[in-house]
């Protein structure tokens, strides 16, 4: 019996010794930037296909575009990058870009007009999800020979009608405008896919970094592009690691095992503010949090009801409690810093007013369903809405589901109320105006699932035409004015209640400088970082 115990205790002792001897740690290496980020949304990094937040971060650091944003001065708008300069034809339909000399891809090949033409044509021809950003200008696989043309060191694109130049160029700063290395890509072509399969997991760009590995749901590793024509970045390696939990990201941050944590919730941010050696970066992003009423619902389609619910949101309390620091009140569909953005947020929680409006609409005791994606902050917003709606006699039943599940119902016009987020696809006001306030055909048959107005069966009450007009206005100020007018109308009449705009808060180690998250218009830059 005694022996039995001895064996047992010995085991315990050995185990505890082994445990205790594992405690040695170092900081991250000087030339490596380690970022904790949820990257489970990345499905590809081919610029012609990539359409997710984490993916566009990677893309921005790997691919250059004809025009792009300067991370140090986002407000300046698009700046020349691969294009040295451009000129617009008299009819306003053609833009000719002159390609800069001396730019080189990571493969060592020079960046030529041919590459630019190939990249843009490829993005159209592949017809992947984001291709609409280009095809809205009338480009299609059939007319590429006439619309996107290269000659010598220039590339000319011709749109189907006149558009605001700023609109076209803003679209080219989106991920899909990334220029790829034609030779390398076509060398890896399989079954006429224009290198799509290869580019999903490899890079062929001229940006400061190149992709060294992507393990889905695990990590993305970038290494400095040795052939980069600009200044070689200080961080020769960037490792983006998938860490799902905010608490885990915070612990990693506190232990100094990572340099940047990008998915911290407001409470963990608060906790980290007090931690030694950690700094918080706030950047206003373009994402909006909104809810929308399905106009197929007989009660919800009443104007007074649409207006009433806008007074049933406790904007202030949410902004200052669980959304603290991460969202700011925004009641217009153009995010702050966008062209045409307005700073009018007239709605506050006003139960009595809402009750009055509901009474005018003859609505008493309403029970509706709200669909929410399984994400904590959205569920909390939904619960807060549930609370305030109840005070005006509206019962809100929350249905939580996976993103795909809820979205599926939203797209098929099946939800009473959808609560979710919307991020601009490219840094031009039309990206949001064209989806919130634009719905040329409201029938079920139209199946315009890409338009938020259609998803809510809203015929926009004349805003569609105004939006179409705004996108053709080439005068910048006039254009901004037109959007202000659309938004004023939209605020009062639309079934959309836009509530908040996202502020991204990232925690960085004190020694990390010049990390830019991309503001409302673009994605994060790592090449600027020093430490």
């Amino acid at each position: 019996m005694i022996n039995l115990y001895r064996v047992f205790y010995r085991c315990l002792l050995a185990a505890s010794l082994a445990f205790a001897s594992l405690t040695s740690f170092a900081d991250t290496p000087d030339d490596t930037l380690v970022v904790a980020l949820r990257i489970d949304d990345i499905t590809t990094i081919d610029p012609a296909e990539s359409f997710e937040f984490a993916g566009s971060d990677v893309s921005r650091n790997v691919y250059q575009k004809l025009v792009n944003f300067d991370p140090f001065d986002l407000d300046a708008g698009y700046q020349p990058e691969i294009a040295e300069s451009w000129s617009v034809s008299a009819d306003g339909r053609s833009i000719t870009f002159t390609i800069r000399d001396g730019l080189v891809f990571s493969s060592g090949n020079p960046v030529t007009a041919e590459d630019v033409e190939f990249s843009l044509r490829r993005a159209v021809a592949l017809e992947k999800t984001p291709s609409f950003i280009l095809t809205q200008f009338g480009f299609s696989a059939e007319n590429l020979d006439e619309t996107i043309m290269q000659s010598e060191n220039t590339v000319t694109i011709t749109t189907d009608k006149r558009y605001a130049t700023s609109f076209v160029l803003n679209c080219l700063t989106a991920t899909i405008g990334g220029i790829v290395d034609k030779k390398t890509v076509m060398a890896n072509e399989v079954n006429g896919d224009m290198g799509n399969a290869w580019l999903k997991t490899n890079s062929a760009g001229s940006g400061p970094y190149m992709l060294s590995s992507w393990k889905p749901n695990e990590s993305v590793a970038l290494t400095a592009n040795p052939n980069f024509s600009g200044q070689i970045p200080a961080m020769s390696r960037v490792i983006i690691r998938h860490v799902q939990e905010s608490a885990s990201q915070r612990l990693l941050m506190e232990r100094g095992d990572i340099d940047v944590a990008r998915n911290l919730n407001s409470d963990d941010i608060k906790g980290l503010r007090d931690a030694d050696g950690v700094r918080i970066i706030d950047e206003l992003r373009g994402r909006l949090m909104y809810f929308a009423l399905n106009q197929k619902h007989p009660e919800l389609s009443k104007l007074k009801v649409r207006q009433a619910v806008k007074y049933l949101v406790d904007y202030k309390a949410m902004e200052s409690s669980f959304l603290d620091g991460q969202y700011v009140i925004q009641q217009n569909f153009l995010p702050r810093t966008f062209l045409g953005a307005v700073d009018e947020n007239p709605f506050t929680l006003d139960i009595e007013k809402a009750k009055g409006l509901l009474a005018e609409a003859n609505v008493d005791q309403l029970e509706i369903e709200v669909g929410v994606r399984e994400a904590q902050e959205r569920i909390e917003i939904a619960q807060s809405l549930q609370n305030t709606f109840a005070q005006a006699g509206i019962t809100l039943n929350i249905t939580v589901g996976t993103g795909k599940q809820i979205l599926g119902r939203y797209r098929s016009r099946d939800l009473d109320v959808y609560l979710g987020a919307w991020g601009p696809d490219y840094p031009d006001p039309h990206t949001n105006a064209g989806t919130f306030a634009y719905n040329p055909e409201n029938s079920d048959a139209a199946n315009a699932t890409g338009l938020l107005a259609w998803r809510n069966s809203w015929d926009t009450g004349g805003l569609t035409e105004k939006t179409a007009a705004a996108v053709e206005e080439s005068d910048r100020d006039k254009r901004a004015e037109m959007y202000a007018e659309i938004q004023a109308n939209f605020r009062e009449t639309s079934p959309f209640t836009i509530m908040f705009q996202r502020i991204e808060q990232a925690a960085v180690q004190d020694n990390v400088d010049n990390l830019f998250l991309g503001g409302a218009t673009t994605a994060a830059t790592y090449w600027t970082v020093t430490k």
Partner: protein
Amino acid sequence: MEGQQLAFLKILSKAITTFISIAITMLGLLLVTFVIGRVMPIDPVLAIVGERASQATYDAVYNELGLDKPILVQFSYYIWDVLHGDFGDSLLNARPVSEDIARVFPATLELATLGILLGVILGTPLGVISAVRQGSWIDQVARFIALVGYSMPIFWLGLMGLLIFYGILGWVGGPGRLDIFFEDIIPVRTGMILVDSIIAQNGVVFRNALSHIILPASLLGYYSMAYITRMTRSFMLEQLSSEYILTARIKGLSERQVIWGHAFKNIRVQLITVIALSYASLLEGSVLTEIIFSWPGIGSYVTTALLSADMNAVLGGTVVIGLIFVCLNILSDLLYGIFDPRSK
């Protein structure tokens, strides 16, 4: 000669029946998964084309995936491919599912193996001791430890463990399998970092990997220990009250000989089944543990795939997990034959 032939035939027929029953089980498994995948209200096409796609793009992908064909036709295509070792490409990232599984499975295997080892090494003696000393303080303590293990939500324990041992004390590594700068240092052979680092004779990486794995493995080990302790205890109690134990005592054997030499030998078979089951459930991937510890294992892989309607990945993962389960069952049956002479 004839006897030998007969014996051979017997083994052959047994092998064939075993194989057939595995095949049927696997087919059923595939069918169920497949049906689930098809009736799920998550649209795999949408998962690919994204929410802004036009109807034409949608239709193209719909046909490309073969979703327009009758479900049985789809299923038979799938079976045909699986028989050729092809699980198809992940709908989401277009990489072969088999490649993904080969990447995530070793992570789970490593974690589960270490976990089950801890569970067996601690749980078995604890169970034996508490059976032998039924009612004593050590029995009470062992039972309590096991009960706590049975009753504690793992995600809570995991987060707390991470907070205390990593966040505050800094005794162990944080989430993930390695510290970032140790990644990609050693060549991937088995995919299990502990093993790979031993092969590469890289002590530093080994230590780092160990520091990362020890906490989640202890946690899983604790849960399997709770189960193993409890089962060992009840098996031992049953054996200790049997007559041959009395015989052994009459022979004048010491308690240790009676317990380990006689009683324990008789519970080996049952214990193997318990351990195999426990191991199988760990290999299924403890989704919650994997999420909390950012462990890129098969559990979270299949779950993520399921939630994003990546049916090829779900089917592939399920087949692999089902195969493991079936294999472990067969293995425990084989060991049964070795350890229990009565089964021959």
